[in-house]
């Protein structure tokens, strides 16, 4: 499979370590609880994260946790204005939409979205066809077979790493078979999706196994409950734990990092790149003058 990931007008190489900024167009997502609900507020956040250096903007209209029903019309009502506004204000930005629904994917791709971030692992069998039709990119996420917006309940894996790797490879191959361009496909092990906290920790430790598939790896770690269960802290206090997991995944070869805290994540990734030998100092003076 290709070594370069092509999304929008950008290329993401193996050691680029790029940030996908989370923009929630929901009233009730677990972390920001409606701070950017309403297109105007969401667009301000889009401006802000691009200003902070985000490489990709990921717009989502439905929270991952269970709750009141959000149907296709409501989801589009929330995300479409943000996609259109973001495309208008930032013509070259890489825009992603966090949805599992092919009906939503059609509308947002038409409006200029570059990537469909399918967090629920292909539950809508028509999604790959839509992505192929529009020449868009896709994130194939392992969600353990769960239905969207359901919680894992006593989930057992004989081999969580092996099963996750096989799962994402299957999803990626299904996309290729549907005509999605291979250089638009990224895989995501789906931390906490259909997995308990120990499963997520093991997948973090074994990021190398995902990278070894040859597909570009995206990880979505930000403020998740597995961090909360290690530290016994609520979402607002999970930044350090998130960054620790980010550093490990980055050092072990993950390519895209889906995050709430763009500046902090970028600094961590820049440091990891330098430690790994993939990037140089910004300033070389000390001891050299």
């Amino acid at each position, binding site marked *: 499979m290709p070594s370069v990931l092509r999304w929008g007008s950008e290329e993401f190489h193996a050691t680029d370590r790029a940030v996908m900024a989370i923009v929630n167009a929901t009233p009730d997502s677990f972390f920001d609880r409606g701070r950017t609900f309403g297109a105007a507020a969401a667009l301000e956040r889009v401006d802000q994260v691009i200003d902070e250096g985000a490489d990709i903007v990921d717009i989502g209209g439905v929270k991952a946790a*269970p*709750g009141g029903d959000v149907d296709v019309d409501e989801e589009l009502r929330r995300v479409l204005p943000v996609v259109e506004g973001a495309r208008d204000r930032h013509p070259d930005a890489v825009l992603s939409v966090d949805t599992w629904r092919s009906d939503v994917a059609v509308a947002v791709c038409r409006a200029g979205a570059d990537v469909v971030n399918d967090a629920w692992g292909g539950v809508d069998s028509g999604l790959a066809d839509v992505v192929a039709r529009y020449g868009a990119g896709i994130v194939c996420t392992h969600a353990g077979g769960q239905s969207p917006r*359901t*919680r*894992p*309940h*006593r*989930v*057992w*894996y*004989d081999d*969580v790493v092996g099963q996750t790797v096989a799962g994402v490879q299957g999803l990626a191959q299904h996309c290729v078979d549907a005509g999605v361009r291979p250089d638009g496909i990224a895989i995501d092990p789906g931390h906490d999706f259909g997995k*308990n*906290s*120990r*499963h997520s*920790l*093991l997948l973090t430790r074994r990021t190398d196994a995902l990278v070894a598939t040859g597909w570009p790896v995206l990880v979505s770690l930000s403020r998740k409950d597995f961090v909360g*269960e290690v530290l*016994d802290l609520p979402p607002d206090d999970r930044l350090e734990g998130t960054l620790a997991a980010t550093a490990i995944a980055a050092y072990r070869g993950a390519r895209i990092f889906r995050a709430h805290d763009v500046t902090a994540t970028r600094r961590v990734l820049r440091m990891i790149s330098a430690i790994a030998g993939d990037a140089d100092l910004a300033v070389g003076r000390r001891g050299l003058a």
Partner: protein
Amino acid sequence: MVTAVGFVPSAPLLIPDLAGGAAERDEPLRGACLDVIRCIGKAGSTICVVAPAVTTAGEWPSDATWDFTGFGVARRPEPNGGVLPWPLGIGAWLLDAAGWEGRRRYVAVDATTTVAYDDADVAVLAVADGGACRTEKAPGYLDARAEGFDQAIMVAIDTGDAEALAAIDPGLAAELWCTGWPVWRQVAMATVGRRVAEARLLASAADYGVGYFAGYWLFS
């Protein structure tokens, strides 16, 4: 012949290794489970652990051991006699913790299983939970019917009412993410019509949105 029934939860977090640093928080419930086992252990020379089938119903060897590695923990005993599916494993672990040294049977049941109790004096350890939809944070989110559903089971345990256990609606149980229903069906089949000498609900909890019960029935 069944001489006693013990009711304990089938929650993985009952196992201290799985609860991590929070193992102490569930000590009262765990303690109640051990009390249940010690109580029913006086009434039988065999304890038959009955738990919901995960993939397959059937009987496991009596020297099989618990194994929770599929939940992500590293530790398990040497599996010389084979490995139990985790719901039976919870029963096995509780028997070990209670110091049970008598005979054991391990049976995983589904909606159609029939279990024969041919031993002279068998105590059944029913490893089962109520609904998993008690709160918005519950694994199955909130379903307003969950509390009443669990309440009926608690009353049945506390009053020794096998007919009430037999009357649990399997369709509603499935909608409420209740995996325990096949176990109570078994208990009801084995005991309906028998006179309960003593029945007690020792503990109940739903702190994590799942209904847990600990109690026992002793037969005359």
